[in-house]
C-alpha cells in the first residue's frame, strides 16, 4: 500500500478507533470501580490490563504517540499489580481513574494536537511522575500486596529466562550513561539467550544529534538473578528510561498463556496439541479410553480432562487453563458475533423511512377498505402485519440498556461523595431496562445533575446522619423499570428530603408564589425546578447555584418525559423521571370526539365501557365520575377539556386507562381501533396544551392528537380540572 493509501485508510478508520477506544475507556472506569469493591478479583485486574493494552495497541497503529506513551505508564503500573507487587488501594485507584480521564482526553483530541494545552501537559507529566513513583519505588512488601494474587515470578536462586526491554531516554549519553555498558553488565549476570537492538527511532545521519540517545534493546536473559538485581543494572538511567522486566514463566505457565492467547479452538485435546502439551498420538489414546467408558454407569465415565492428566501426564495447571479458555469461548462466542457496528444516522434514516411507510400503509388500507375488495383488504392486512414486525424490529435496534449510562454514575458518586466528605452506598437497580439510544444519550446530563444534587443537598454528612439516628453512610439508589409503555427512572436517597418551609419562603421572596399563598406540597416541591431557584445556604461548586434544575426539567420534557418529586422530610427524596420508550412510533388506540381524532398509547388502555351519557355524573368537587363495579372512577370529558364543538351523541364510550396515579376514564364518542402511530412533535403553539404529547398524521392526511395519559391523569387529580369541568 502506498503512503497515501495508508493515510487514507487511517483517516477512514480513525472514527472507528475513537469509538472503540471510548468503549475501552468506559470499561476501564467500570472495571476500576468494581475492582475497588473486589480487590481480590484477578479476572477484573486482567480485564483492566487488557483494556489498557488494547487502547495502547490500537493507538500505536494510528501513530497516536501521546496516547501510546501515556498509556504505557498506566499499563506498567497495572502489570506491577498483576505481578502482585502492588495492591490496589484508594489512592492508586484515584490515580488510575485520573489517568483514564487523561487517556480519554488524549483520544478525544487525537486529531487536534493544539487541544493539548500546557495545563494538560503539566497534568499529564504530574500523573506520569506519580505512576513512575509507584512502579519504580513503591513496590509494596509482599504482605501488603497480598490483596492481588501473585502472577508468575521467579523463585530467588532458580535459573530462569527474563524478558527485559529498555528504551533509553534522549539524555542518556549526556548523563554519561551508555546502553552498551548496561547490556554488557546484564550479560555478566547470566547467559544472553537473545538480544535485539531497537534502532528504528534513530534519525537519519543528516538529522542526528550524536549526543542524543535514541537506542533501545530487548533481551532474553537466562539468569539466577532476582528482579531487583536486573533492575539494578538500570539504576543510573532509571529516571530517563522506559524499562520492562517481565517475570519468567515456567513451562506450564508458558503453555497456559499460549492457551489463553490462542484464537478460538473449542476442542480441549486440539488446544493442548496445538500448544505442544500433548502429542496427537497421546490424544488419540486418551480419546479411545474415553470412548470405551461411554457405555459405563455415569460414575465410571471418565472426564477427558482427568484422563489427560492421568494418562497423558498433562499438568493440571495446563488442563485448567485450557478448560478455562474453552469456557470463556463458550461465554463470549455468542456476544462477539451478536454485534455489528452501524452508523447511527443510517439507522435514523431507516427509521424515518419506516415512519413514512407506516403512514403510507395506513393510507393503502383505507383505500382498500373503500374498494370493498376482499382480496385487496386481505393483502393489505398482511402487508400491515409485516410493516408492524419491521417496525418493532427496527425500533428494537435502537434500544440499549440504561445500565450502561447508569454505570458512569459510579464514578460521579465516588468522586463527588469523596470531595464532599460524605460516605455513600450507591446501588443500581434494573440496569437492563432498555431505552432508545438517543433518549439514553439525552437523559445522561439531567440524571447526572440530579444525582449530584442528591449527593450535595439531599444526603447529610456522617455526623448529621448519626445525630438524626441514621446510619453514617447515606444510600443512593438509581433504578429503572418499564411502566405502561414508558420507562420510569428513579433517583432515591435517604437524605433530608426537601425543606418545604425553606422552599416556600424562597418562592415568596422571589415572587414565584404570591406572598402568603401556600400551594399544595407537590407544587411547592416542584418550585425547585423554577429558573434561578436555589435554597442551598452555601453555594458549592457541584450544585446549589440553581443553574441547571430548570434545564433538567426542560430537557426531560423535551423528551416527552415528566419529572415528579416525592419528598419525605428527614427520610429522603424520590425523583421519578418518566420517559417514553421511543421517540418515533407507538402502538396507538384511536378514538374520536366530534370531528377530532385522538390516539391513546395502547399499553395504557385497560378496558372500554359502553355508557349512556347519563351514567357519567359530576361529584361534589365538580369532577366527572362513573361508578364502575362499585368503585368511583374519575372521568375526563375530552369534549369539555378541549372545547370540541359537535352534537352530543346519544351513547358515549369510556376508555379506562391506568396511570401512575391510578385508573381513570376518558369519555369519547367513537372507537376507531388500534393503529400504529408515528409520533410527530407538536408545533411551538401547541406545546403548552396540557394532556397532549404529540400528533400523528393518519393515512387519509388527517391529524390526530396523541394523549399523554400521565399528564391527563394529573389534570384529573389536580385542582385544574375543577375549573375545566363543565
Amino acid at each position: 500500500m502506498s503512503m497515501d493509501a495508508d493515510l487514507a485508510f487511517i483517516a477512514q478508520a480513525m472514527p472507528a478507533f475513537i469509538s472503540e477506544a471510548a468503549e475501552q475507556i468506559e470499561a476501564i472506569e467500570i472495571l476500576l470501580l468494581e475492582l475497588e469493591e473486589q480487590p481480590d478479583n484477578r479476572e477484573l485486574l486482567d480485564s483492566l490490563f487488557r483494556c489498557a493494552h488494547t487502547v495502547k495497541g490500537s493507538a500505536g497503529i494510528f501513530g497516536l504517540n501521546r496516547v501510546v506513551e501515556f498509556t504505557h505508564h498506566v499499563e506498567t503500573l497495572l502489570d506491577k499489580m498483576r505481578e502482585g507487587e502492588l495492591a490496589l488501594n484508594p489512592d492508586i485507584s484515584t490515580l488510575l481513574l485520573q489517568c483514564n480521564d487523561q487517556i480519554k482526553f488524549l483520544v478525544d483530541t487525537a486529531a487536534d494536537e493544539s487541544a493539548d494545552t500546557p495545563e494538560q501537559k503539566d497534568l499529564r507529566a504530574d500523573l506520569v511522575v506519580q505512576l513512575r513513583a509507584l512502579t519504580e519505588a513503591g513496590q509494596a512488601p509482599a504482605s501488603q500486596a497480598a490483596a492481588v494474587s501473585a502472577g508468575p515470578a521467579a523463585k530467588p536462586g532458580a535459573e530462569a529466562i527474563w524478558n527485559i526491554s529498555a528504551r533509553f531516554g534522549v539524555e542518556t549519553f549526556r548523563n554519561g550513561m551508555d546502553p552498551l555498558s548496561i547490556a554488557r553488565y546484564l550479560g555478566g549476570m547470566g547467559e544472553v539467550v537473545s538480544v535485539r537492538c531497537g534502532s528504528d527511532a534513530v534519525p537519519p545521519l543528516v538529522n542526528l544529534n550524536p549526543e542524543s540517545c535514541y537506542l533501545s534493546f530487548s533481551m532474553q536473559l537466562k539468569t539466577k538473578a532476582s528482579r531487583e538485581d536486573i533492575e539494578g543494572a538500570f539504576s543510573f538511567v532509571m529516571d530517563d528510561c522506559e524499562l520492562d522486566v517481565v517475570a519468567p514463566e515456567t513451562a506450564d505457565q508458558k503453555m497456559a498463556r499460549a492457551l489463553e492467547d490462542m484464537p478460538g479452538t473449542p476442542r480441549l485435546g486440539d488446544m493442548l496439541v496445538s500448544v505442544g502439551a500433548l502429542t496427537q498420538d497421546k490424544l488419540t489414546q486418551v480419546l479411545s479410553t474415553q470412548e470405551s467408558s461411554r457405555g459405563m454407569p455415569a460414575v465410571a465415565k471418565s472426564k477427558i480432562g482427568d484422563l489427560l492428566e492421568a494418562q497423558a501426564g498433562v499438568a493440571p495447571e495446563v488442563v485448567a487453563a485450557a478448560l478455562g479458555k474453552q469456557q470463556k469461548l463458550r461465554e463470549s462466542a455468542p456476544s462477539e458475533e451478536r454485534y455489528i457496528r452501524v452508523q447511527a444516522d443510517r439507522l435514523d434514516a431507516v427509521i424515518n423511512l419506516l415512519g413514512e411507510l407506516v403512514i403510507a400503509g395506513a393510507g393503502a388500507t383505507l383505500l382498500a377498505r373503500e374498494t370493498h375488495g376482499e382480496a385487496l383488504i386481505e393483502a393489505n392486512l398482511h402487508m400491515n402485519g409485516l410493516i408492524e414486525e419491521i417496525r418493532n424490529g427496527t425500533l428494537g435496534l435502537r434500544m440499549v440498556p440504561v445500565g450502561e449510562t447508569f454505570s458512569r454514575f459510579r464514578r460521579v458518586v465516588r468522586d463527588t461523595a469523596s470531595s464532599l466528605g460524605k460516605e455513600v452506598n450507591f446501588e443500581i437497580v434494573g440496569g437492563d431496562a432498555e431505552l432508545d439510544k438517543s433518549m439514553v444519550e439525552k437523559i445522561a446530563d439531567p440524571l447526572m445533575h440530579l444525582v449530584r444534587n442528591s449527593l450535595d443537598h439531599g444526603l447529610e454528612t456522617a455526623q448529621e446522619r448519626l445525630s438524626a439516628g441514621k446510619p453514617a453512610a447515606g444510600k443512593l439508589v438509581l433504578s429503572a423499570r418499564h411502566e405502561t409503555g414508558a420507562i420510569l427512572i428513579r433517583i432515591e436517597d435517604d437524605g433530608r428530603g426537601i425543606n418545604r418551609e425553606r422552599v416556600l419562603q424562597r418562592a415568596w421572596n422571589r415572587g414565584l408564589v404570591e406572598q402568603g399563598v401556600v400551594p399544595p406540597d407537590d407544587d411547592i416541591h416542584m418550585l425547585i425546578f423554577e429558573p434561578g431557584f436555589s435554597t442551598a445556604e452555601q453555594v458549592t461548586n457541584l450544585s446549589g447555584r440553581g443553574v441547571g434544575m430548570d434545564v433538567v426539567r426542560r430537557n426531560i420534557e423535551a423528551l416527552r418525559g415528566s419529572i415528579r418529586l416525592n419528598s419525605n422530610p428527614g427520610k429522603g427524596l424520590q425523583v421519578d423521571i418518566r420517559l417514553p420508550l421511543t421517540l418515533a412510533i407507538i402502538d396507538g388506540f384511536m378514538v374520536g370526539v366530534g370531528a377530532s381524532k385522538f390516539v391513546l398509547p395502547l399499553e395504557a388502555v385497560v378496558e372500554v365501557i359502553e355508557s349512556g351519557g347519563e351514567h357519567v355524573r359530576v361529584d361534589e368537587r365538580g369532577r366527572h365520575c362513573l361508578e364502575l363495579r362499585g368503585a368511583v372512577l374519575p372521568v375526563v370529558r375530552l369534549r369539555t377539556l378541549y372545547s370540541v364543538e359537535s352534537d352530543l351523541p346519544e351513547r358515549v364510550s369510556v376508555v379506562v386507562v391506568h396511570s401512575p396515579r391510578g385508573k381513570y376514564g376518558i369519555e369519547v364518542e367513537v372507537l376507531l381501533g388500534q393503529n400504529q402511530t408515528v409520533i410527530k412533535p407538536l408545533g411551538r403553539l401547541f406545546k403548552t396544551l396540557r394532556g397532549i404529547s404529540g400528533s400523528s398524521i393518519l393515512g387519509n392526511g388527517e391529524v390526530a392528537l396523541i394523549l399523554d395519559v400521565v399528564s391527563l391523569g394529573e389534570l384529573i387529580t389536580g385542582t385544574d380540572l375543577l375549573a375545566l369541568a363543565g
Partner: protein
Amino acid sequence: MAERFELPAELNIYSALETRDALLAWVAEQTAEGRDLLEVSARDVAEVDGSGLQLLAALANGDLPWHLVEASVPFMAACRTLGLGKWLDGRTLKTGATQ
C-alpha cells in the same frame, strides 16, 4: 575521498560529532559518484560505545544501503552485545580483523 569509510579508533561519544560530519561528507560524495552500496570499515576501531554504534544505525536509516567490510574484535563484540549482530554479515565481512 576513499571508496570505503574507515571508522576511527575511538568510535565513542567523544568523537561522535566529528565522525558524523565526516560520514555525512563521505556519503554525499559517494552519492554524487552514483554508488548504490556504501562500504564501511571498522578495522581500526579499538574503543566503541553506544553513541558510536548509533551513528551506524543512523546511516542504516538513511537512503543508501551500506555494509561492513572489515571489523575489529572490540567492534564485533560491541555489536553482538547490543544486538546488532546482523551488521556482521559473514559473507561480506573480512574476518581476522585487527584489534
